[in-house]
């Protein structure tokens, strides 16, 4: 069925922004705002989007933006929410829009506190798997096997990517889910669901590929993102109340094909890749056990 029948809407993200060609994070923002609409406010910490959001006097978005310091997304959203509620603007959606650095690492504390407080906003971590804005340094979201500027050469990252959704599920927030820019309808559904839940924090872990940092052709930004899901390196799933798991994706594509498309994995041997495949298989099995309940 033709999607063009459904919308001829105004994008809430402006063109002319300075994102890299093929930037997954900009596709992510565009799709997120399509789902959420213009009664939305966005809190952006230090990350690629802090730059993409625009230099004075420009803004890349047609919704209000509050730029903030790196570690503070969770806290600023809480404060903003309190203010809006006190002003009677309860229908405005607040989204924290942070990268993996500002979520998994420096921003984690504030995120955890917001989750524990049960604050009413949607925290979206758009994940390009490293500190990209500062020039591709590793974060705790960088996957095992990746080369970055701080895990260079033979010292490629030998620790696993932190499982942020499991951590958020352990906070027993009402809703957390993974999403991916190559699956726009799934993303839309999850954001609309998140928006409708007001009883606590909602956390979306949104996969956003990065041609510049991962070393692949910009034209493949969506393709690579899709491969991450279909190889189960990044499965799509939801967790409600920290315990009800629903898996939204499948696939058994070999992770080999996914990894070999990216320069950041160039140092891996076939044996290393086999280990990654085993890890993926184990994690998939674990996820399925949780879904079976």
């Amino acid at each position: 069925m033709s999607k063009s029948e459904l919308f001829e809407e105004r994008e809430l993200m402006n063109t002319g922004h300075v994102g890299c060609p093929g930037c997954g994070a900009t596709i992510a923002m565009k799709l997120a705002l399509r789902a959420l609409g213009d009664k939305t406010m966005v809190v952006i910490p230090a990350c690629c989007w802090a730059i993409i959001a625009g230099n004075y006097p420009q803004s890349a978005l047609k919704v209000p933006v509050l730029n903030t310091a790196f570690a503070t997304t969770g806290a600023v959203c809480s404060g903003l929410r309190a203010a809006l509620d006190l002003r009677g603007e309860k229908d405005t959606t607040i989204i924290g829009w942070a990268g993996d650095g500002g979520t998994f690492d420096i921003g984690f504390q504030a995120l955890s506190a917001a989750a524990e407080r049960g604050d009413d906003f949607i925290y979206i971590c758009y994940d390009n798997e490293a500190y990209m804005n500062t020039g591709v340094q590793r974060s705790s979201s960088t996957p095992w096997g990746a080369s970055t500027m701080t895990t260079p050469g033979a010292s490629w990252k030998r620790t696993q990517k932190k499982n942020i959704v499991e951590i958020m599920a352990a906070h027993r927030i009402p809703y957390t889910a993974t999403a991916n820019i190559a699956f726009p309808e799934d993303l839309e559904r999850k954001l609309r669901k998140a928006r409708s839940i007001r009883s606590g924090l909602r956390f979306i872990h949104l996969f956003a590929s990065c041609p510049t940092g991962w070393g692949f052709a910009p034209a493949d930004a969506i393709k690579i993102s899709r491969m991450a899901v279909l190889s189960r390196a990044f499965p799509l799933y939801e967790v409600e109340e920290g315990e009800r798991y629903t898996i939204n994706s499948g696939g058994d594509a070999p992770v080999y094909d996914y990894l070999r498309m990216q320069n950041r994995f160039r140092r891996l041997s076939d044996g290393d890749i086999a280990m990654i495949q085993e890890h993926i298989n184990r994690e998939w099995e674990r996820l399925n056990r949780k879904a079976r309940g």
Partner: protein
Amino acid sequence: MKTLLEGSQACAEAVRLARVQVVSAYPITPQTHIVEELAKFCSDGSLNGRFLCVESEHSAMAAVIGAAAGGVRTFTASSSQGLALMHEMLHWAAGGRLPIVMAEVNRALGPGWNLWADQTDSLAQRDTGWIQLYCADGQEVLDTTLQAYRLAEAVNLPVMVILDAFFLSHTWEPVDLPAQEEVDQFLPPYAPRFRMDTDHPQSLHGVAPIGVYMEMRRSMQLAMEAVPELLERIEEEFFARFGRRYGPVDPYLCDDADVILVTSGTAAGTARVVVDQLRAEGQKAGLLRIRMFRPFPVRSVHEVLKSAQKVAVLDRNCSFGAGGIFASELRSALQGGNPVPVYSYIAGLGGRDITVETIRDCFALTRRTDRPAIESVWLGVKEELLK
């Protein structure tokens, strides 16, 4: 209504009277009574606002920044380590031009752990763009907090209301608690100059390129320079309504004094006793209490100290590698004015009592020393521990 209030309570009552809507704080001794009192007010409805419990001071300031950007009146409080942790966000609040008011309880920084009065914590934040007002008693804490909102909202810079650990925060004093209606007349509802608004979407606090950053900073400096006059006008109104005023500085018997002691906070109360004693002994001693540290009250100090022969500064703080901070600021401020020698003394760090003897020593040393050392003189130090 006159009532007996702890310094912390006086602060909390002022926040309630100011109709603050969002309070977010992280507990740290000796600020805790302030925030506990406010949590109670929010819980029992005497303050129609929200109390956000956060997991660190950095987040406390971030949360009130978020709330202020959302367009409501906000408050937080901290001390010592907490204030230090907040440092990045202090810059952010000021650069963000948000009229946040914070109570800062002057407490020593560790290591070693020390809970007691020391001004180094707030003074270490003197470059952040916050207005700093040092209080000497409970009434002043209450009054200054109310004035702080008026001032902050006029200049779009945040204000720190500072009180000594325990000596002020935990001391009970008689305080005149104004009625809500009276405060409402003095402090109108908050009308933000900008806020997050879906009807007028804007991006706040984003990238300021080389071509505009300096002007944005100049704007902050110009706001600071407008503070003395604005504070005076605000205090005029406050005086008219409540019968009290404080000024940027509080001089005592300075007009004919030859030696004037400059100090701040609760030590000033003791110093006043000493000045009275010395006057009774025939010395022309004077006291200048500095209330407004940021912006530094250059004109006021020039005026008060214009005829002094010697000035002694008693700092309850130290900038390592330099010395007493009030002394160094005063020395700079006096440039081009009365070339009076400034004697710098450091005492009372980490809650060490500043007694009548301590202050008498200040005066005595100042009188008998021809020229002041560049280095600050530390009073009451146990030299044997340093061998």
